[in-house]
């Protein structure tokens, strides 16, 4: 029972941490860690090789 509670707390912590990181990334905090300066062009039916 105690083990399950620990797992549940861990899961809740991960969810909250994920949400916080998501918001921080969108705010520009630490975005350099996940992105590169290389331009990104999303694929389109006209030019699908990106």
């Amino acid at each position, binding site marked *: 029972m105690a083990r399950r509670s620990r797992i549940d707390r861990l899961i809740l912590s991960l969810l909250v941490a994920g949400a916080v990181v*998501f918001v921080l*990334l969108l705010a520009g905090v630490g975005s350099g860690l*996940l992105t*590169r300066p290389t331009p*990104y062009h999303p694929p389109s039916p006209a030019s699908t090789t990106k």
Partner: protein
Amino acid sequence: MERAEAPGGATRTARSRGRLALWLAVGALVFLSLGLYGNVHDPTGRSLVTLFFTQTITLKAWLATAAVTLALFQGLTALRMFGKLGRGRGPGWVPTAHRLSGTTAFLITIPVAYHCLWALGFQYRSGLRVLLHGVFGCFFFGALAAKMLVVNSRRMPAWALPILGGTVFSALVVVWATSALWFFRTEGLKF
């Protein structure tokens, strides 16, 4: 005085419905906030780190596919827990596996959604597929937020969780179908 006169069950029902409405409002706020952010934010046009993939798009497509696969597992374990699949409510590990897979799916979607919003923004003039992808992408996180609040609340209406879970799953499938599935069908299976 009114609360004392009202039957206890009716009061609890009204409270739980009020809390459900509040959580749905929070979900709607998340949905709108992400959409507005994607609309007003100037897209950076930068690539995402690719890890061991060759391109940003392949990384995103495979992460999205992993998230949908985990969501499918979530759906099956949810059916098992609710006694709709097989006999009884399943072994004791099923609820933990359900929560862990859902958490992992959420964490996997973060870099994908972040890149969509940060580098590309909300695009409503790039065709129906891109529009649906953007709308359902924002809706997915709103529905997920509402679902997580409902699942951690007591005395919610019995129908709320299955409907919200199904909504989250359906939204993710639409997001995946309008991006990763489209990419794989157009480009083939690339890494």
